[in-house]
């Protein structure tokens, strides 16, 4: 195994990507309940808005934020010649996603504790 910032970023991107795909299909299923009327929809929605799922949501947020920022980093590298700054860019993405996740996570927790 060959670990490096590039390798870690790739692994995280992959894991978050696959996690997001799984979430996407769950999400489709939840929203799809709308076809079956208000009750079913609200029931499914409530099922995924319990405290446990709030924690899941934080993980989801982390995944989205990291994946998106890392995606931006990749796009930048593709379209501008930035391979020299690969390590700096990686750490920038890493720290930015940590901050955003933390901010969002605190908000989610606060809402949860306030009972929405």
């Amino acid at each position, binding site marked *: 195994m060959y670990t490096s910032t590039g390798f870690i970023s790739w692994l995280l991107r992959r894991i978050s990507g696959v996690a997001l795909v799984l979430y996407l299909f769950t999400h*489709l299923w939840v929203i799809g309940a709308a076809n079956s009327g208000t009750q079913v929809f609200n029931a499914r929605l409530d099922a995924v808005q319990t405290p446990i799922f709030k924690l899941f949501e934080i993980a989801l947020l982390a995944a989205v934020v990291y994946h998106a920022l890392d995606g931006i980093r990749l*796009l930048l590298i593709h379209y501008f010649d930035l391979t020299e700054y690969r390590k700096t860019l990686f750490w920038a993405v890493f720290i930015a996603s940590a901050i955003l996740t933390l901010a969002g996570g605190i908000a989610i927790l606060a809402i949860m504790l306030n009972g*929405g």
Partner: protein
Amino acid sequence: MLTFKIQRWSAIALLFFLTVHMIFMHYVPPFHITFDVVQARLSTPTWKIIDILFLFSVLVHAMAGSYQVITDFESAFNYRKALAWASIIIVILAFIYGAKTIWAFQL
């Protein structure tokens, strides 16, 4: 190379849609989402179109990504034709299902 390009284009589209989605769904109140909330929003045609486009790009991006992840394995690489078709079919089915849902919302 085509998958690669699709992945980038859809990523750029997603950057737009996801930001919009996140802001309007999660960063502006009300924070507890119910049927009514969703219904209210999705009843406007603009939102319908935005969300259908969002749905399409995210599905394309997700399946192109999954296809990449799977075909990176040498054993799967040999079946990449079949896998590509499977991904396309999943995208179409999921898109029909999701679009129907979005369309169904009426006040």
